């Protein structure tokens, strides 16, 4: 079946091109007068002097969350690196001195030139150790090395700097002090 679409018929004075031209000129003239008298109504965003506020749910740069003592929450379980579709997370695990913690990331690098900011690493993390809530969406560098977020860069922030978005309930980190084998575990370590 072919559906024939009829052209809309132009009637009356509008058949003359000049009349249409004048109508169009009137339209643009309205814009000119309005923008000359009320420049404050212009929708232009003056960037970078006055950028628009970044929405709370924006996926910006990554950061590694810290415990109270400042060490990273990350336990180098490799879930984020495994889940990463761009293969941009490189973790080198090392044994931790803390008896309660099995591993910690000796190196935790994120290659920003590969990262596609999909947020799957954040989804994958069971400890809420990595987040993408930094309000930084434009970053620059002179070399390729500048675009690799090392562990130091990822930890270089203050937790209070970036308040959570409203109604954001992070999963509580695993509390190993209240597990079923807690006492047994402690006694084994003390020996």
């Amino acid at each position: 079946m072919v559906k024939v679409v009829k052209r809309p018929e132009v009637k009356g004075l509008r058949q003359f091109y000049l009349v249409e031209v004048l109508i169009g000129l009137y339209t643009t003239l309205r814009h000119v007068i309005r923008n000359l008298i009320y420049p404050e109504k212009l929708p232009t965003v003056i960037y970078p002097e006055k950028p628009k506020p970044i929405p709370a749910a924006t996926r910006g740069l990554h950061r590694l969350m810290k415990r109270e003592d400042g060490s990273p929450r990350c336990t180098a379980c490799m879930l984020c690196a495994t889940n990463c579709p761009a293969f941009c997370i490189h973790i080198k695990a090392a044994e931790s001195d803390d008896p309660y913690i099995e591993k910690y990331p000796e190196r935790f690098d994120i290659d920003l030139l590969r990262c596609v900011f999909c947020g799957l690493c954040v989804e994958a993390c069971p400890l809420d150790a990595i987040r993408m809530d930094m309000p930084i969406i434009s970053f620059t560098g002179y070399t390729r090395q500048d675009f690799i977020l090392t562990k130091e860069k990822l930890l270089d922030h203050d937790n209070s700097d970036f308040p959570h978005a409203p109604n954001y309930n992070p999963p509580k980190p695993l509390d190993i002090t209240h597990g079923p084998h807690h006492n047994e575990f402690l006694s084994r370590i003390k020996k």
Partner: protein
Amino acid sequence: MDPITFEVINIVIVALLAWGIPLQFIPLMIWLERKGAAIIQDRIGPIRANIGGIRLFGFLHNIADVIKLLFKEDVIPNHVYRFYYFLAPFWSMTIALIPLMLVPFAAPITIGENVFRFQVATYQSGILLLFAITGLGVYGIILAAWSSNNKYSLLGGLRSSAQMISYELGMGLSIVAILMTYQDVQIQNIVEAQSGFLKVFGITFPLPNWGMFLQPIAFITFVVAAFAETNRTPFDLAEGEAEIVAGYHTEYSSFKFALFFMAEYANMVVASIVIATLFLGGYQVPFFTTEELRANPQYTLTAMLVLGILTFLILGFLVYKRAKYISVHFPEPLGKKEYFFISYALFVLAILFVILIPVVLNLEYNDLASQIIVAVFQLTMILAKASIFLWLYVHVRWTLPRFRYDQLMNMGWKLMLPISLLNVIITGIVIAL
């Protein structure tokens, strides 16, 4: 002073004036194009380029442009025909600057025994020579297109030259109607005939005696043809960046490209002044003849001051509105104050003019002073009338889409030509009656 020396001095002064007007209007036009585009499209326009926070409404972008074009590498491709390749931009620019030498900018004034004409050349052929010269402008485009030895350049040049030649017919025939109306080919006589009130068949209308009221059809066809002649939208097929790269100046870089760019704007200025001369009474102040203005110099000056006050008040108001907007957004100390300073300066100028009005009314004027006052008034008048069309060029450019090539040719040959011919016939019948 003997007449020969006086004549030479006269020609040199007026030639510099006629040569300077398009050259001075080019940066203004580029600024107007950008700012007008921005304002039509609900944007702010150029404000970024600044010297220590001073922005001058984006005028500094022109300086940045020129510096950029001067320092760019001047690439000369190996496959071009060198002589014509170099000749084309200079040809375009030269031809763009010549026609204004034939246009009167003010009524002639008598100094002692000599007559100082505000027109470089008064040929017997007058307006015909003007169109002969503008007709040469197409050679710049053809030379550039052909010597570039490049498909895209040739296509653009072909379109452009075909369009210019087609629309010259409509243009010439609309001019024929004007010549029949005024029974004269000399431009200064055509302008002089357009003073005072409109009189048709002995009835006086409350309108200025302009060509656009006597010949409305010729006016419309001439304006459309002028748009086509200067290669502006909706007739800018030559640039057609969607189909061909950039038209005839594809192979040009650096300052040769800038010359083409400037030639386009100079052509626009020339076309605007010619339209104003033929159809809007040229240098004539509406409703008043030159003699009436010269008889009452104090009232002439008062009128000038009142117009100046109105201009300064409107401009000052617009700049003040914009100053509030800019000062909110930009943190530089100078940039915050600059727009306010300019707007207050305009208001102060308006107040000064108000104070000057009673002073001007009580002054004594000799003959020469009154003539000079009227000449200045008439010079501002023709530039104001041309500015209307300069704005119309920008306004139309950001309103209308481009024609297709076949539509363009159809309009040129099947619409403009018959309409102009009909207009000539009707004019002949009316004059014979």
